[in-house]
């Protein structure tokens, strides 16, 4: 009887372990398609103007160059990321570099507003209206 019960316990914990493993896989494998956006944007009362061409990369990916009003997609895997934005002048020289780490979750938006980020706005990750 006890042997049977021990077996049950082992089986149950094995199943539990597999379920947890599944959640972990979900966590590390979850992909997001992030829109990086270099357009003028209004968040709350503040308006952030897109002023310059920027070079952007997330987690050290191949840098993307976005001119004013440019927008592109970067695909990432996982929840925690570091974005690196470089503001460029007319001669493609870097004026300013901003690096910021951020965490996504199920409810956060997928639009990363670069002017807002450069302007120091806290909610620079925007949920798009469907």
């Amino acid at each position, binding site marked *: 009887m006890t042997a049977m019960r021990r077996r049950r316990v082992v089986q149950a914990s094995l199943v539990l372990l*597999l379920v947890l493993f*599944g959640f972990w*896989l*979900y966590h590390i494998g*979850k*992909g997001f398609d992030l829109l990086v956006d270099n357009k003028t944007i209004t968040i709350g009362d503040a308006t952030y103007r897109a002023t310059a061409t920027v070079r952007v990369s997330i987690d050290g990916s191949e840098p993307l160059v976005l001119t004013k009003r440019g927008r592109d997609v970067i*695909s990432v*895997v996982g929840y925690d990321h570091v974005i690196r934005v470089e503001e460029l002048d007319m001669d493609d020289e870097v004026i300013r570099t901003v690096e910021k780490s951020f965490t996504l979750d199920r409810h956060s938006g997928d639009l990363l507003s670069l002017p807002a980020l450069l302007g120091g706005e806290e909610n620079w990750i925007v949920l798009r209206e469907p």
Partner: protein
Amino acid sequence: MKKTGLDGTFRLDRFLLTNLVPLLFIGLSAVAIPISQFSGAYLVQEMMIRLARNSFLVLSLLIPIIAGMGLNFGMVLGAMAGQIGLILITDWMILGLPGLTLAALIATPIAMVLGWMCGAILNRAKGREMVTSYILGFFINGLYQLVVLYGFGKVVPIKSADLVLSRGFGVRNAVNLLGIRNCLDNLIPLSIQGIRVPLGTFLVIGLFCLFIVWFRRTKLGQDMRAVGQDMDVARSAGIPVERTRIVSIVISTVLAAYGQIIFLQNIGTMNTYNSHEQAGMFAIAALLVGGASVARATLPNVFVGVILFHLMFVVSPMAGKYLIGEAQLGEYFRVFVSYGIIAVSLVLYEWRRARDRAYARRSLRGGEV
């Protein structure tokens, strides 16, 4: 019928009969390859890809054969379970190897339930397992369509607009698996003289071969062999026959689910309503081409079969085109070959069985010839 002893001619007969199918295929390929004008490097690369793509599915057929249940046409059940896993992870956007593993994890319980059901039904249809599992495949296909075409998006939430039909529920005909495409194949990049070797997949297949070798030696594996040889003897030896048979089908179904996932990660797109049907037929045909029979199949059968069968598959449309000027003819030819090969193997197997039975009956009656 003339009674033949164990003299030389009889054995040659026997050899030709058991290896008829692979020999036939080697002959056909020898003729068709030069006609098709494919280069050697191209064919080697193509075979490499197809070995990685199909071996696992074919391997999943081995265990029910040990248990004497014939070719498990019910493996399509596993394939369907695998596809449900893939649809879900595609909707959730889980990418890469974690996505693949999660799909397998989701498919496992579904495949276990389906496999258990299949095994239980086959226990009620002893002696006609193959035709029953074959029809069962169709039946479950109906349920699968019910779930995927009507349930997904209504009962099971599906968010991605790329997956759902425009009417708001039901999964589209083609599902793009870009997120997990080749993630296992390219896990360990390796190239030998310009030929890409999908080492990751081969490692998984190798592990699985070891599993089968090990499994045959376990108590359960031995029990299965006993059940496969004679159910009544096995039962009197205290082996739970019904349970053993169910377990063999459950294992096969779960493995078929993994096989289908590996297959589709290589292909990169999934035909929601067709991929699984083809999986069953091609896997079975490949195994038989490799020289396996309904009652006996080995690991070499699997790999020889996959290579020979798919060689024919790649080569025949082009051979048909150059030979008769009609690629369509080659297409039909390979369909004919896939079905024909299954038919021939089944006939040879049943023929041999009927002959043995007739022989046993005669000797029972007392040496009347």
